[in-house]
């Protein structure tokens, strides 16, 4: 597989480059394409809006399985999402929003210290504590931790208290200032949740991170190097960007907690957080992620890849431009 188009090459139709793998995905009964893309358009006079809508609705009503997290992955048969390995569910899940209480101790936090976070998830119907969670990427509860200056990042997994069945974790606090935690879990009977909370370690300044704009140079991880090419070369806010990562050496790659890669993009003001996994990956050195930067700001994008048992975490700082005419 060769997904990556070198920066020196003139951009062309990217979808042609991923065609062979897409065909393989289609063979599994799963096809994902981009709405509004050129491929989905035909000549004039085909159908009315109502006829098109009826046809699409009939297809979905006939029994379509969805990935509850990657909603664009669908199948006519039960199975697992090729992107995140979640079990597919029948029908488009209606979103259900849970609440989450977070208790941070000690009350007075110190830079260089630790904090214990206790999480209580509550259902939206009776406000009862939730203790049954689906396993997502080999864990029932994922937590991303970012400092406001974006100099500290962690992807960790709280553990369950044997008595209360609630989750908790001890976090290192290497610096003063604002921390944001992003909890990622999937209650049984609900839909996947992504809930943000903040706490402050006294002594720091509350101000946006100074995120650079250089994403052309390769980044060195623990035991591999990561190169990024985006299309378009200058991402536009609100429009989909394709991120092509190439890792070197390309041998010895392993799934890390259920995926060939993990990505978290955070805006320099900590307001936008976007989480995803490879749109296309097969264990080779090249992986494609899709990402829409919501606003025209600078973003820090962390990616994680595992090679020979070692988790590599690197980041790229990417500016998203405003669409202008």
């Amino acid at each position: 597989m060769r997904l990556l188009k070198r920066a020196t090459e003139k951009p062309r139709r990217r979808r042609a480059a991923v065609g062979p793998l897409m065909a393989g995905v289609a063979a599994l009964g799963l096809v994902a394409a981009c709405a509004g893309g050129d491929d989905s358009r035909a000549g004039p006079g085909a159908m009315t809006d109502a006829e098109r809508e009826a046809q699409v609705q009939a297809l979905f009503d006939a029994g379509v399985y969805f990935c509850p997290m990657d909603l664009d992955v669908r199948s006519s048969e039960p199975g697992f999402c090729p992107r995140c390995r979640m079990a597919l569910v029948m029908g488009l899940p209606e979103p259900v929003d849970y609440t989450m209480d977070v208790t941070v101790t000690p009350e007075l936090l110190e830079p260089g210290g630790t904090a214990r976070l206790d999480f209580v998830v509550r259902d939206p119907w009776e406000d009862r504590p939730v203790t049954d969670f689906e396993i997502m990427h080999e864990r029932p509860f994922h937590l991303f931790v970012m400092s406001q200056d974006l100099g500290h990042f962690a992807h960790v997994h709280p553990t369950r208290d044997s008595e209360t069945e609630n989750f908790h974790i001890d976090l290192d606090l290497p610096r003063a200032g604002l921390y944001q935690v992003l909890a990622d879990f999937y209650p049984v009977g609900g839909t996947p949740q992504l809930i943000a909370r903040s706490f402050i370690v006294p002594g720091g300044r509350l101000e946006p991170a100074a995120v650079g704009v250089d994403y052309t140079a390769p980044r060195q991880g623990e035991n591999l190097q990561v190169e990024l090419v985006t299309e378009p070369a200058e991402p536009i806010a609100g429009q989909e960007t394709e991120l092509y990562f190439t890792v070197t050496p390309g041998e010895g790659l392993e799934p890390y907690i259920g995926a060939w890669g993990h990505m978290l993009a955070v805006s320099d003001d900590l307001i936008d957080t976007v989480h995803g996994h490879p749109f296309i990956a097969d264990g080779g050195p090249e992986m494609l992620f899709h990402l829409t930067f919501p606003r025209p700001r600078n973003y820090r994008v962390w990616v994680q890849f595992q090679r020979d048992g070692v988790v590599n975490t690197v980041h790229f700082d990417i500016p998203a431009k405003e669409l202008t005419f």
Partner: protein
Amino acid sequence: MTTACIRTGLGAAILAGAAVAAEAHDALTTSVNWSRTVSRIVYERCASCHRDGGTAFSLTTYAEARPWAVAIREEIFARTMPPWGAVKGFGEFRNDRAMYPSQINLMVSWIEGGAPEGDPEDLPEPPEYPEENAPAAETVRVVRNGATLESPVVIDGLFPRDVPDGGSYQIVAELPDGRVEPLVWLYEYRNEYGHAFLLEKPLELPAGTVFRGIPAESSLDLIPPPSEPGVRD
């Protein structure tokens, strides 16, 4: 693990061998439709203002909302609508009107999938909207940036006043013991849509608490719980 919380690909799927033809219109490639799903989100998050008799043009019917679909998407991405004016996760509010990521996903999926109407039989009952009243001035304590509490207070909500449009302000309470309590992170807060932020749980602030992050020309109303007598400084 949850995929991108805001991503254009969400409404992108089509079944193999069943690509839907389109000509001068958007391709309909989503099962998210107005009647069953989007109308409920609009009723919950938008229609308190965007309705007949509201403060903005109505979006309560498919015919009214469909022409605005692309603009709605842009406003959602820019976080200018709904005009909640604060960042989720920095303080917790029981009247939070900002869209959840799941609602944003569905709205984007609907818009990028061609914004289908669905079956009008699936429409929910239109909600009723009680008028929200600002707290009476005599019930609140008003503070400015750097103000220090001379006596303890229990607050049930916050009402920012005279905030410059379009800014980003992290307002915190510095407690005498050194703790820093996040109060509200104003973002794209506009006075024309000014409103109270009602806390999920009442917050006790001791004497000596200092307020930081309030814009110089602005003030913050500290709204007491209904049973708490208020004092105006």
